């Protein structure tokens, strides 16, 4: 099962890369930059997926106190930080040529930044707690809190920007034609598979390290 999952993920990632870099045509408005979105959007979805897994597993850990849930929660928190960091980086690399700025106060960007900060905090709390057991509990609490807070942050940023000034160029303006949809869908699938594999491997590693 394990080699199969890793192989399938690698294959999906390669196909996704091929579709994104060769098959997909340049967009009429964004040009070649549309290819950045094939990594940006899937990374964002993977970040939110990882955060959801971290929240669920942490809540289960706090409820059942089963170490296995903590392993999953920890993996989720690390991957949420990783993928949200990647989302921010690729978002900036897309924004500079297309919007002309590295950073726009777009709701999605701000929300992702908040997610990144909260999960970095979550990991720091775990490492800096005075006792490993306490670290597991405290970081689980932060993971739950962060995930519940993020939607509120998102909507407040959306309303803060849109009610004040007209929205700048937003993703909603770009209609997705099928030739763009296919690479996006395949890449999203590939990143979610990657997330699943990394989650499983990270959790397994954590269990090995505890047994030691």
């Amino acid at each position, binding site marked *: 099962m394990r080699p199969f999952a890793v192989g399938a993920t690698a294959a999906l990632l390669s196909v996704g890369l091929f579709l994104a870099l060769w098959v997909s045509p340049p967009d009429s408005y964004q040009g070649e930059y549309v290819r950045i979105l094939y990594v940006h959007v899937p990374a964002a979805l993977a970040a939110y997926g990882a955060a959801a897994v971290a929240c669920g597993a942490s809540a289960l850990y*706090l409820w059942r106190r089963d170490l296995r849930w903590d392993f999953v929660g920890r993996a989720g928190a690390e991957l949420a930080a990783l993928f949200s960091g990647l989302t921010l980086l690729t978002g900036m690399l897309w924004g500079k040529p297309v919007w002309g700025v590295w950073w726009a106060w777009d709701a999605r960007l*701000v929300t992702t*930044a*908040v997610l990144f*900060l*909260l999960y*970095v*905090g979550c990991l*720091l*709390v775990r490492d*800096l*707690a*005075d*006792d490993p057991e*306490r670290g597991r*509990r*405290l970081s*689980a*609490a*932060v993971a*739950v*809190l*962060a995930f*519940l*807070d993020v939607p*509120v*942050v998102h*909507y*407040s*940023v959306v*309303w*803060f920007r849109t*009610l004040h000034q007209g929205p700048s160029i937003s993703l909603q303006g770009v209609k997705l034609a099928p030739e763009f949809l296919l690479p996006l869908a395949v890449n999203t699938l590939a990143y979610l598979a990657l997330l699943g594999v990394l989650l499983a491997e990270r959790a397994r590693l954590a269990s090995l390290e505890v047994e030691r």
Partner: protein
Amino acid sequence: MRAWRRVVAVARKDLLLEWRGRDALIPAGSFGLAVLLVLGLVSGGGWEAAPPALWVSLLLAAVVAAGRGADREGEEGTLEALLLYPGSREDLFWGRWLAVCVLLLLLGAGLWGVQVLLFNAPTRGVGVLVLAGLLSAFGLAAVGTLLAALLTHVRAGPLLMPLLFLPATVPVLLAGVRLSEAAASGAPAGPWWGVLAVFDLLFLLVGPALFEVVVEA
């Protein structure tokens, strides 16, 4: 009845210690004042810069004020004594929450007054501001109480406090700024009462439950 007595006892204890030592209100207040001054200076001090400056300074002062209540328990093993009393630990959360709420309202009132002077800000719509202040104090105190308890057993806890507190309370900041602007200009408040209400509801429900998990041995 007994839970209420415990909540009031904890809040009264915190406020009495605060009244005698003033070791949260004075540092947090002067820090907020410094932030307000600096923001006023760099923004040119126009009245339209007043609401953001007010809410940013309040949020930063809240970081200091909320952390102090938990620090005070560090000495003399009082936290352990508090936790080992019979009865629900949610009462301890609510007691601390109540005390932090009072501190935040005092801080907010003080900073608002200074902001009116420094920014020459209009004083219209005080009723709206009072209600916004109350609602945000509820939410901020819940987050602050929870995080302060969470970080007492973490090395460099006071340094992590802003890292977790500020991103988590972004909705209060945004809602506060827009409501202040609405109060000053008489414009409609939009969805901001809803944002504050949802934020409060979320943390007043989750806060006590997570607090119990966080303080347990």
